[in-house]
């Protein structure tokens, strides 16, 4: 009963949604044969290379798999630092 109550008020996700989300993540790594650690290494290497050309914001730097239908992509979001208050 408390369970239902908590759910109605949005305090807890249905556990199947948690399962699906976790599966989605783990399968992306399984299918690409790339562990989260390897992805982290790839991210650091990318950061190094791009930094040679651009001044990038490494805090906002994101690399992740994205999957829609049956296509998979590696998506990087690379924010560039503003130069002294000016937009590039």
């Amino acid at each position, binding site marked *: 009963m408390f369970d239902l109550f908590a*759910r109605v008020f949005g305090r807890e996700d*249905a*556990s*199947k*949604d948690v*399962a*699906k989300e*976790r*599966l*989605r993540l*783990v*399968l992306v790594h*399984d*299918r690409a044969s790339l562990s989260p650690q390897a992805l982290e290494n790839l991210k650091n290497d990318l950061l190094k290379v791009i930094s040679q050309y651009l001044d990038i914001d490494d805090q906002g730097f994101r690399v992740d798999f994205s999957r829609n239908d*049956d296509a998979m992509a590696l998506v990087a979001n690379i924010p560039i630092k503003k130069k002294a208050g000016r937009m590039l």
Partner: protein
Amino acid sequence: MGEAIVITSGKGGVGKTTTTANIGAGLAQAGKKVALIDADIGLRNLDVVMGLENRIVYDLVDVVEGFAKLKNALIKDKRFNENLYLLPAAQTRDKTAVTPAQMRDLVTAMKEEFDFVLIDCPAGIEQGFKNAVAGSDKAIVVATPEVSSVRDADRIIGLLEAEEKHHPLLIVNRIRPSMVKKGDMMDINDMIEILAIELLGVVPDDEFIVVSTNRGEPALLNAQSRAGEAYRNISRRLTGENVPLMKLDDESAGFFGRLRKIMGIKG
């Protein structure tokens, strides 16, 4: 020329052997000539699930090594007229006792005599899997609605693809409608969406499976078993019939549900 179907899952304990036994029984009941191969060498179980363990003389490895003739190793299941046969696994050998090429030859020879050859694949992704898959024309992937099972099923689908076994079919096993309703179990659509393969059937969780395994009688032989009914539907689909999915309402739950059922009122 018959069709060879491998029943696989990656993860152990999700119901491959029960599925093999019941689909075999269903096809045999439908008048097809069926052979079951237990490819789980070293951990044979299809014999006990079928209740044929006392009739084993020769096994799969004996046949492959030429020590016994296929027709002498096949055990006829007398409950199914002349339609259902079992080729048991060897218990005292391991997966390396046969090769994929030998399995391919064996299954090809068996397809000459049978309408369906069902191969019960061992758990895992090693040689046992490769052996079981080698001679198959079609693959069935059994998965339960749990993260571990779905993850392994996904891996198996990838490995089947690598072995050039395309378009596997999914059986969702042990689904519990009451938990699905509460949002505490993935439903059929969740599973199809994640695994992206075609659905062959859905088998509800059914305590009767335990009873039928205790007795060595396929659940399908019991008209009351919901899982048995689901397996009957799956067998019919495999023969090309168009059978709609079973309704999985949680009709039997609770006193009023049971009462409704007794009185024949549909929920």
